[in-house]
C-alpha cells in the first residue's frame, strides 16, 4: 500500500515536471502532426458503439492524411488521435478529459460515445476553453447550458421525428388538403429522451397548425398499448407518432396489426434496434423510422465522396456496413479539419471561432452550428419499411425512394 502510494506520488511529480516543461504555448502540434484527443468507451456497456465511433474517427484521419493532410498557413499537417478508454462511466470520462487537456496538453477534443458521457466531459472542456466536436451526444440538455466550446454534428433528440411532421404537411398538400387540418396522435414514453422527441414534434405541429388529438404518455413498464390504440381507432388521426425505445416500437406494431387499427401514417423511433422487420415481416410495412443518416443519401464531400462511397470504403476497411454512429464520428473529424484550414493558425480561440462559423457539406450531411453549438443544417432521415427493407423517404430533397402513403387499411393488406 505504502509502496503503491509512493509510486503514485512519484508518478504525479514526474507528470507535473513533464507538464512544466512541455506546456504548449499555443496548441498541441508536434512537428507536422496535429494531435486530437478523445475518451471513448472501449469497455463497458457502450463498448460496441464506442468501437463504431473509434472506427469512424480513424477512417477519417486515415483518408485525410492520405489526401495530403490539413493545410494550415501554407503548410501541410497530418492528423493523429490520442485515445483513452472511459469504461462507459461518466466520472471516468471527465477524469480522462482532464488528463488529456492538462497532462497530455491536447488542445482539440473529439466527443465520446453517448449523451451521458458527453454531458460529463463538456464541463471540463468548457472550463479549459478547449473546443470539442462531438458526434454521439444527442440530448437536448447539452445545448441549454450555454456552452461555447461544444459543437455537435448530429441532429439533437428534439429533431428525431420532426421530419415526420414536415412529411405529413407535404403529403397533405399533395392530396389537396390543408396541413392545418391534419390530426396527430402522440404516444411517448415518459423519459427524457422521448419527451425531447415529443417537444420537437409539438413545436413543428404547432408551426403547421396541426391538431394534437391524442397525447398519451407510455409508462416505463409498458407492456400493453391497447387503450391508446383503441383511442386511435375511435379518433382516426392522420399520423400516429410513437417513441418508447425498443419496447414501444415492438409493441405498437404488434398491437396495431392485431387490433387492425388503421392509421394512414405511422412514425416511430428505435425500429432498427427493435428489429421490427425481422419480428413482424409484413406487419411492419409502411412504418416510418427515424435515423441520423443513411448510405443512400445524396450528400457528398471531397474526402470521402458520396455517402455510399463512405459506406463502401468503411466496409472494405472494417468488414461491416457502417452504422450511423461511425458516419457521424467521421464527419466530426472532417469538421475539425475544415476549421483548421479556415482558421489558418493553431490559436485555440481562432480554431473555436472557425468551428462556430462552419458551413459545409459532408457525406454525412450539411453542417452549420447555431450559437448553442448544435448542427441545424442536417435534418433527421426517415426510413420507410418497403418490401422488407428500410428505404429513405424523407427529407424529400435527399431521399432515394418515394414514400408509400397513405397506408392502406388492414383489410386490404396481405
Amino acid at each position, binding site marked *: 500500500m505504502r509502496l503503491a502510494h509512493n509510486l503514485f506520488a512519484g508518478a504525479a511529480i514526474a507528470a507535473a515536471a513533464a507538464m512544466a516543461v512541455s506546456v504548449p504555448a499555443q496548441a498541441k502540434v508536434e512537428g507536422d502532426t496535429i494531435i486530437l484527443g478523445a475518451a471513448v468507451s472501449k469497455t463497458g456497456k457502450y463498448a460496441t458503439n464506442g468501437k463504431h465511433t473509434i472506427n469512424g474517427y480513424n477512417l477519417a484521419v486515415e483518408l485525410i492524411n492520405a489526401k495530403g493532410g490539413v493545410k494550415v498557413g501554407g503548410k501541410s499537417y497530418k492528423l493523429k488521435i490520442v485515445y483513452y478508454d472511459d469504461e462507459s462511466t461518466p466520472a471516468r470520462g471527465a477524469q480522462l478529459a482532464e488528463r488529456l487537456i492538462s497532462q497530455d496538453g491536447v488542445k482539440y477534443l473529439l466527443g465520446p460515445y453517448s449523451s451521458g458521457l458527453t454531458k460529463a466531459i463538456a464541463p471540463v472542456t468548457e472550463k479549459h476553453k478547449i473546443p470539442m466536436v462531438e458526434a454521439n451526444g444527442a440530448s437536448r440538455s447539452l445545448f441549454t447550458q450555454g456552452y461555447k466550446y461544444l459543437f455537435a454534428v448530429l441532429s439533437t433528440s428534439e429533431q428525431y421525428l420532426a421530419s415526420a411532421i414536415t412529411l405529413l404537411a407535404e403529403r397533405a398538400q399533395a392530396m389537396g388538403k390543408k396541413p392545418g387540418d391534419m390530426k396527430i396522435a402522440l*404516444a411517448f414514453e*415518459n423519459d427524457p429522451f422521448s419527451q425531447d422527441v415529443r417537444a420537437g414534434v409539438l413545436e413543428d405541429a404547432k408551426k403547421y397548425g396541426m391538431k394534437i388529438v391524442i397525447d*398519451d*404518455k*407510455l*409508462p416505463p*413498464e*409498458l*407492456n*400493453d*398499448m*391497447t*387503450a*391508446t390504440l*383503441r*383511442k386511435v*381507432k*375511435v*379518433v382516426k388521426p392522420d399520423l400516429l407518432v410513437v417513441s418508447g425505445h*425498443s*419496447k414501444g416500437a*415492438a*409493441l405498437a406494431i*404488434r398491437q396495431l396489426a*392485431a*387490433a*387492425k387499427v*388503421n392509421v394512414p401514417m405511422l412514425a416511430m423511433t428505435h425500429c432498427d434496434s*427493435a*428489429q421490427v422487420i425481422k*419480428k413482424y415481416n409484413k406487419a411492419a410495412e409502411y412504418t416510418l423510422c427515424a435515423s441520423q443518416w443513411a448510405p443512400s443519401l445524396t450528400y457528398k464531400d471531397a474526402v470521402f465522396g458520396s455517402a455510399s462511397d463512405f459506406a463502401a470504403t468503411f466496409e472494405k476497411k472494417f468488414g461491416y456496413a457502417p452504422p450511423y454512429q461511425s458516419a457521424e464520428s467521421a464527419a466530426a473529424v472532417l469538421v475539425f479539419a475544415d476549421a483548421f484550414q479556415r482558421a489558418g493558425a493553431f490559436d485555440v480561440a481562432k480554431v473555436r471561432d472557425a468551428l462556430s462559423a462552419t458551413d459545409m457539406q459532408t457525406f454525412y450531411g450539411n453542417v452549420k452550428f447555431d450559437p448553442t453549438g448544435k448542427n441545424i443544417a442536417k435534418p433527421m432521415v426517415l426510413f420507410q419499411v418497403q418490401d422488407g427493407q428500410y428505404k429513405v423517404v424523407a427529407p424529400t430533397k435527399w431521399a432515394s425512394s418515394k414514400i408509400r402513403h397513405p397506408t392502406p387499411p*388492414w*383489410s386490404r393488406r396481405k
Partner: protein
Amino acid sequence: MIDNLILLLENPVAFVDLAINGVLIGAIFVLVAYGMALVWGVMNIINICQGEFVILGGFVAFYFSKWGINPMLGVAAAFVLLLIVGWILYRLVIFRIVDRDLFTSILATFGISILLSQTMNEIFSADVEIARHGLGTWSLFDGRITLEQIKLAAFALAMVIGLALVIYMKNSRAGQAIRATAQNARAARIMGIDTNAVYARTYALNAAICGAAGALVAMIFTIQAYGGLAFTVRGFLVVIVAGLGNLPGVIIAGLSLGAAEQVASFVFGLEYQLAFVFGMLVLIVIYRQIRLGFRRQYLR
C-alpha cells in the same frame, strides 16, 4: 381525462371492445394470481418472483417460435420447465423460509426475483422479444370490435388450466394432501403426509402455472428480462381482492381487473395503467381495514 371519458361515452362500441379485450387478458392475471394464492395459502409465503417465472416462461415460447415450432406447444414446454425450476428453487431456498414470518419470505423471494431477472438479462440479453403465433383477428361491427384469436385461445387455455387444477386439488391424492397441509400442517404430518414434499410440489406447481401464463404473454404482448414486476403486482391485487383458497373469486377478480385496467388507462391515460392497479390495492386494503374495525368478534 374528461375528454377521454366523453369520447368513451360517445363510442359505446369502443367501450365494449376494451372490456372484452380486458377480460380476455384478465385470464392471464387469473393464472398468476391462482399460483400466488396457492403458495400463500399452503406455505404462508408471498411469492414476489411470480413475474420472473412469467417472463421465463415467455422466453420458452420465444425460442419455440424462433426455432419454427408452434409456440402454442411452448405453453406446455414452459409448464414443464418451470415445474423443474420451481422444484429446484424450493430445494435450494424456499424450504428454509416456510415456517418463518412473512417478512422473511418476502425478502427471500424478492432476492430470487432480482437474481432471476439479472440472469435472464445475461442469458437472453435485454432485448425485447416476441413469439410469433400466426393466428389472425376477427373483426365485428365493421372492425370496431376486434377479437384476436390468440387472446381467445389464451383465455380458453387459462380456463382449461384452471379447471384441471380444481380437479387435481379436489380429487387426486396429491391435491388432497396439499389441501390438508394448508388446513393444518402439523395435523397433516401426524396423519403421515410428507409436508416437505407437499410444499415442494405446491411451489413447483405455482412456477409451472406462471410459466404457462408467460408463454401466452410472449404471444400476445412482448417480453423483456426486467418486465416481471407488473405481473407480480397484478397477481397480488387479485389475491388480496379474492382472498385465499377462493378460486371462483380469483377468476372473477382477475377478469374484472383486466377489464377495469383497460377502461381506466383509456380514461386516465396509459401512464396510469399500473398506478391504477396500485391505487385499487390501497383502496381495497383501506376498505378491508375499516370493515374489520366494525367486526364484533374481535376483542381489543
